[in-house]
């Protein structure tokens, strides 16, 4: 179409625009051309697996037994404020919408936010935290908590109490966890942690 040709020429008008590369080169060198038009998929190879800043259309989310797979969610879409989501029909809460909690780690400069719903259980969650913050927890036992760990995952529950991650059933944990804190092992003494 004529009009778009005209626009193309305007785009290449070298006089006033900023361009990459030496003058006289018409195209931007090494421009990436992913086929991002029809799908949400990004074609970058090095995306962090645990990165929760975007879910692609092909990611499978954990399914509760007996329910059809919920639509894989795109972060921030549809554009609704979180406080609105929280008062939706209660039956939908934990199943479809994200349960976002902040995660802090003693000594780390900034917090992260994760969606608890994407993990099937404690094992996955702890592994994800270990990857995100680069630490390891060793083994968990009911009696002794996280034995031999420099860091211990804890969470604040609905009553405002700080609890050790792993004590209550997973479903109860998801519905009562308000935020996570990865505590230094030395501080966690008295929570059943032998360090």
């Amino acid at each position, binding site marked *: 179409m004529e009009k*778009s040709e005209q*626009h193309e020429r*305007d*785009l290449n008008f070298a006089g006033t*625009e*900023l*361009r*990459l590369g030496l003058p006289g080169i018409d195209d*931007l*060198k*090494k*421009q*990436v051309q*992913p086929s*991002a*038009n*029809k799908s*949400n998929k*990004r074609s*970058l190879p*090095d*995306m*962090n697996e645990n*990165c929760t*800043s*975007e879910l692609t259309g092909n990611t499978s989310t954990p399914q509760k037994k007996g329910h*059809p797979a*919920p*639509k894989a*969610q*795109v*972060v*921030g*879409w*549809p*554009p*609704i*404020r*979180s*406080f*609105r*989501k929280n*008062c*939706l*029909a209660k039956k*939908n809460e934990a199943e*479809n*919408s994200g349960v*976002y909690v*902040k995660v802090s780690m003693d000594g780390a*400069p*900034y*917090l*992260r*936010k994760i969606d608890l719903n994407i993990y099937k259980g404690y094992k996955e969650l702890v592994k994800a935290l270990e990857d995100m913050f680069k630490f390891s927890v060793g083994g968990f036992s009911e009696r002794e908590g996280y034995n031999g760990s420099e860091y211990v995952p804890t969470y604040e529950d609905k009553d*405002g109490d700080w609890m050790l991650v792993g004590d209550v059933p997973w479903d109860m944990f998801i519905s009562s966890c308000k935020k996570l804190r990865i505590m230094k092992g030395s501080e966690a003494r008295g929570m059943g942690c032998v360090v």
Partner: protein
Amino acid sequence: MAYSFPVEVLEHIFSFIDSDNDRNAVSLVCKSWYEIERWCRRKIFIGNCYAVTPRIMIRRFPELRSVSLKGKPHFADFNLVPEGWGGYVDPWVLAMGRAYPFLEELRLKRMVVSDEALEMVSKSFKNFKVLVLSSCEGFTTDGLASIAANCRNLRELDLRESDVEDLGGNWLSCFPESCTSLVSLNISCLGSDWSLQSLSALERLVGRSPNLRRLRLNRAVPLDKLANLLRRAPQLVELGTGTFSSELRPDVFSNLSGAFSGCKELKALSGFWDAVPSHLPAVYTICSGLTSLNLSDANIQSSDLVKLISECQNLQRLWVFDYIEDSGLEALAESCKNLQELRVFPSDPYAMEPNVTLTEQGLVAVSEGCPKLESVLYFCRQFTNNALFTIAKNRPNLTRFRLCIIEPRTPDYITLEPLDAGFGAIVQNCKELRRLSLSGLLTDRVFEHIGTHAKKLEMLSIAFAGDSDLGLYHVLSGCKSLRKLEIRDCPFGDKALLANAAKLETMRSLWMSSCLVSFEACKLLGQKMPRLNVEVIDERGPPDSRPESYPVEKLYIYRSVAGPRLDMPAFVWTMDEELALRLS
């Protein structure tokens, strides 16, 4: 000049000039007017807290009484801005504490506010009157306790939609018995668990505030307490109820109904958490006076909604869930001829299948029946170009049009075509359109329409749309009045951005996430445009650890006279000359 007015006369004249734009115009007339104006300006609005520094503000305007600041970009509302990005108010409070001992009003939006900042506010400004924290976070009820305890002349405390950590305690009781100045109290964002002490503190506070006009309660306030509160404040103009359900006892109902009928000035109602339909008639007596009704926290179904709404003939603003359905909207179009603003929110946005019958028909009906309709926010699952044509034809007076078709890239469900033509009709007919949000299947054509026609458009939100850089190019080169542009998941890249670099200095900000702007282009832009802060936000690690042609995750560009900010977290980089040299 010998024949000009004395300074005092000019000051007096300027004191009648309130609007920011007019004040700015006055300050540009000549040097002496600039000087006089800056000494007598009392109110300032800073749309981006990083566009300027506290020091610059204080240096130019030494006598401010009212400061409004906005922090994070709008898409932070939808979790697109990572935690820790910025927007801290503390440095501002610190500076203002020293420079403006007579500050009276502070209005913040999307900022991070600490308890320390709140304490400083409460102690630095002896005549502090108004605190509005809109969508803010970072503070707890301890911070609120400082405000309550120390601000002796507090008129407004409005926490709308903020994220407040509830540490228990009883901060409401920190308002001294001598505090009787409250005009507006909005605590609707606070939690749902409250002690009896908090409730009685609230009752006493309301009881001793004869000027209280606006009261928005939180969910924790039970229905049987509402009547007491209303009887203590029959002069209320705006009310947000607490939870609107309880055991249905006739005495509770008649008590409540009586209390409502005593509030003859009520114009706005909200709240209604957990509303039970049988309780709704309690408000019928005041419905005819209502101009604003916010039912977006209430799971009420269509027929009950219709009954309520048909009592509200003078309604100007309605916020509601899609439970209202097309039939309810048709009834709305019949009853409420003064309607100006409609917002319909999705009750179940993540369901695969629609749970309610809310389609394009509902909005078309309202556009036909409500001649004053100018502001629309509408979530639904299907739309057609024809419906958009009709809406555009019916309502050329639209100023805000935000349509969200829930599934990205949904075409016209009848013709399966993109919705380019439909939105094109909107921008062509609605010549006063200032805000537009697009959705559905859209090609570059829609942006051509927007660039050609949307000359008064100030804010544009785009998601999952367009085919190429041409789309962005049309918008940046055509929309003369554009101030805020936010884009996510669109194939827009370097060319259009660089070709329109100068345009960016005429706007407040540009947000682009999950697009195709390369790190290389960001660097170039940052280097060449010193009055822009080009922030690359990337949680995958430093952008120079990947090839330069790779798209950045998120990009936030804003004009600034403050230079690059110094409080960036590890995942934000400002592109400027220095950085470019370091990284090359």
